[in-house]
């Protein structure tokens, strides 16, 4: 089953991952934000570095804020970023 998701990264998460975005195909058991983060972290390198403290990571699925229990699936746009500092 093709489960291509679009990942996008911002601020220091982008810097640590080393890219602004990519298309990934996580395994079939990755159906939630929490599972996606754990899987990504397990990819090592920049991912492990970027995600070592998940309390500092915010997630948006299709441009809406999402908690770890939110579902993710094919064609979703999943954004990972630090707490925002606008305004």
């Amino acid at each position, binding site marked *: 089953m093709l489960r291509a998701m679009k990942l*996008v990264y*911002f*601020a*220091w998460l982008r810097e640590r991952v080393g890219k602004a975005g990519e298309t990934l195909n996580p395994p079939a058991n990755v159906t939630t*934000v*929490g599972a996606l*983060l754990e899987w990504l972290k397990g990819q090592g390198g920049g991912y492990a570095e970027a995600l070592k*403290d*998940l*309390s*500092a*990571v*915010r*997630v*948006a699925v299709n*441009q*809406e*804020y999402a*908690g*770890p229990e939110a579902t993710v699936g094919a064609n979703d746009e999943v*954004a*990972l*970023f*630090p*707490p*925002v*500092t*606008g*305004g």
Partner: protein
Amino acid sequence: MIKVQTEDFDVGVELKTLMARAKGVGGIVTFTGIVREWSGESSSGDPASGRRQLAAMTLEHYPGMTERQLADIEAEAVRRWPIEASLIIHRYGRLEPGANIVLVITASAHRQAAFEANEFLVDWLKTKAPFWKLEAGPQGQAWVEAKASDDAAADKWGMKPTKRSAAE
């Protein structure tokens, strides 16, 4: 109305434009956020206090989500308060000390509504709008950390949390 742009804005011009479409308002509240010369909590400019002088600030944002969040926040303010007209402008890109960052205008027949809606919008911009500030100074570059005081300010408006940590 919302605008996300790199260009500067002129508060006087924006106020006149907004007033032209907001008949019957009695009070207009405007918040302008400016790039400070010193990072940190104080503005006394005392270099001994551990704060850092800024050469510039670069604002990154999430195109698409930003516009969506700003439109949602503005719509929520209009639901909560009798606002006749409102405007949010948020800049991104490289900005030097003294430059405008953000403009929030709320116009109402009632000054209390205009004040509250404006403060609500600013509090939510600080904690919900997907912008990130990278400060550059003599000591190098650093991403600005989110402030607990901003979360507390946003919490007082009693909206559902939107910034849940991925660790929850």
